[in-house]
């Protein structure tokens, strides 16, 4: 098994164990704001180059290279904005909240570096509404950063570099994590995703202007990258999955936890079973299935344990690393109930804009509910797959979609996974006397 990242190789969780790591004093004492100072000695384009050389993949879920996304701003169109996606809500995901609570200055420094590199003239830091403690820590850190001259007018005394960071907070809606919905919400609207194209808000975003939307963890890596160079970052991890990544391992494991590991070289077996990480299953239990990357991801099984936590490998194996959430289920798990739990989530959180998602997710939830209530019909299992096929034609991976955003197809993942592997468990919920109903809409 590969070794965990030694403490000095931890990039973004290095202050998690430091009592005052969230304060300006604690942050500066441990090397904070060195990356920003270094950036301001460079030309903005050179800072962008370092990030491109780092091959930093976005940490929000889609895994798109940040440096490439940054390059999509159309030349000559100003102003440009930075929107920080701190609306972490994907079930099982638990990393951005810790990064905001325990190391808020690192995120602020990352924001300032991004603004400097790309000419982004105002930053909006959108924090999930339910995260009161993170909002508090960020407000306190921003007040300190402004007071000390790191943020706001004339950053570090530079006469030509001024940027405001506006703390913003949501009010409870998973869909707002989708970047165009985030922008709608930030404009004061209902948080519904925008029609594509344009595919990237970098061309048309907040107030119709070029806007970079980056995840909290993505931005938190920037101070290290600028201080140590993009190549040093790219040297860590695997070829296409560089640096480190933070994974939350939860569910039926002995020691649930949040772990920063080299990206792309650690395997699922390592992170689930190694005593340095989640420490294996609960005593006497065996692995049944696990979700490798948040509720939207198709499920993995025993045979996937030796896959590395590497984007391309996991994509090709039919799932995704998504938001870094690994949810482990043991042999005591009722997969029909687990499947229903995840599907209910998507049904509840569908914004209602696209018919296949609005109708499809709620019908999937209703059918699973009646199955669990002992009122299933024999054709319900095929009906579930048929509804899935309507939401995501072909039920393939990566999913095709009939909707504006991926929320609808995400509800297909748990059903396709569980029904294929554990069909017998679904059938066991069918009442013994079930009568096949024909000729009526189900």
């Amino acid at each position, binding site marked *: 098994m590969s070794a965990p990242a030694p403490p000095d190789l931890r990039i973004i969780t290095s202050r998690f164990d430091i009592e005052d790591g969230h304060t300006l004093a604690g942050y500066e004492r441990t090397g904070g704001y060195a990356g920003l100072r270094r950036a301001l000695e460079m030309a903005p384009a050179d800072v962008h180059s370092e990030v491109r050389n780092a091959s930093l993949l976005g940490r929000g879920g889609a895994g798109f290279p940040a440096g490439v996304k940054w390059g999509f701003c159309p030349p000559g169109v100003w102003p440009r904005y930075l929107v920080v996606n701190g609306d972490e809500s994907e079930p099982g995901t638990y990393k951005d909240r810790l990064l905001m609570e325990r190391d808020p200055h690192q995120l602020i420094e990352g924001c300032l570096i991004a603004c400097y590199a790309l000419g982004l*003239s105002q930053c909006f830091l959108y924090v999930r509404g339910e995260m009161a403690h993170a909002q508090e820590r960020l*407000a306190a850190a921003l007040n300190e950063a402004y007071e000390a001259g790191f943020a706001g007018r004339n950053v570090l005394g530079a006469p030509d570099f001024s940027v*405001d960071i506006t703390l913003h*907070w949501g009010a409870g809606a998973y869909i707002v994590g989708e970047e165009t919905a985030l922008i709608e919400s930030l404009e004061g609207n209902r948080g519904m995703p925008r029609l594509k194209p344009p595919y990237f808000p970098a061309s048309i975003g907040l107030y119709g202007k070029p806007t970079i939307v980056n995840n909290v963890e993505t931005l938190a890596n920037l101070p290290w990258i600028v201080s140590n160079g993009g190549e040093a970052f790219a040297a860590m991890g695997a070829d296409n999955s560089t640096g480190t990544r933070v994974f939350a391992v939860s569910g039926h494991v002995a020691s649930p936890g949040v772990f920063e590991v080299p990206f792309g070289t650690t395997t699922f077996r390592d992170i689930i079973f190694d005593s340095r990480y989640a420490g294996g299953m609960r005593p006497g239990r065996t692995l049944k299935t696990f979700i490798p990357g948040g509720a939207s991801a198709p499920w993995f099984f025993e045979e996937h344990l030796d896959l590395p936590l590497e984007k391309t490998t996991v994509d090709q194996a039919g799932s995704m690393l998504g938001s870094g959430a690994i949810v482990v289920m043991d042999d005591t798990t009722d997969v029909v109930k*687990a499947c229903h739990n995840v599907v209910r989530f998507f049904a509840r959180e569908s914004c209602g804009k696209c018919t296949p998602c609005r109708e499809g997710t709620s019908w999937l939830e209703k059918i699973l509910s009646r199955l669990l209530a002992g009122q299933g019909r024999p054709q319900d299992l095929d009906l579930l797959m048929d509804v899935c096929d309507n939401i995501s034609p072909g039920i393939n991976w990566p999913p095709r979609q009939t909707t504006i955003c991926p929320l609808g197809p995400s509800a297909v993942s748990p059903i396709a996974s569980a029904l294929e592997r554990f069909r017998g468990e679904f059938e066991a919920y069918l009442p013994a006397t079930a009568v096949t109903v024909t000729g009526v809409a189900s």
Partner: protein
Amino acid sequence: MARLNANSLGVAQEIIARYPVPRSALIPLLHLAQEQDGYVTEDAMAHIAELVGVTPAEVMGTCSFYEMLKREPVGEYMVNICNGISCHLLGSSDLIHHAEATLGVRPGGTTDDGKITLEAVECIAACIEAPCLQVNYRYRNRVTADDFDQLVSELRGDTAKVAPHGQLARVRQHIGDDRRAGVSPPGGQGEPAWMARNPSDNGGSAS
């Protein structure tokens, strides 16, 4: 129960001033109204509409989309039990059933004494601490039935030291006038000054 009072209005104006387009302040202002009254009143929505220059219907449209914004009175304490997949695997359904039996309400309901509103909510990002809940958006981790009963007695006796419903962060962002860079409105702005820097010209006094 009403429009924003003088104190809230001062905070509201400071919030609005941080955005290039006033409407962007809508959600923070709705939270502010909820902090003042415990929920978002119609009068507050009308007042917010005036402040950001939209109609009350538009404010209602935004407000009604988001789960945290309550347009009817709720209990002093929102007890939100997480029912996400990780908590589900570790017994959240049992905890919710226990809460229903203890409080005598279903999720969404408020106890007769007006103290507690129970909700079963989607993942609140404390998955390694399952099963978890939030009281007025402050975490309680690895909650057992006994922990829950203890919590309820603390809430009923007002000894839980939890901020009132509506108040989120106890620290507000404040930007001093001398430190403010200024909002960046979407119209009529050129390339920011620092973009003219090149490697041989450091431009600023940073280092």
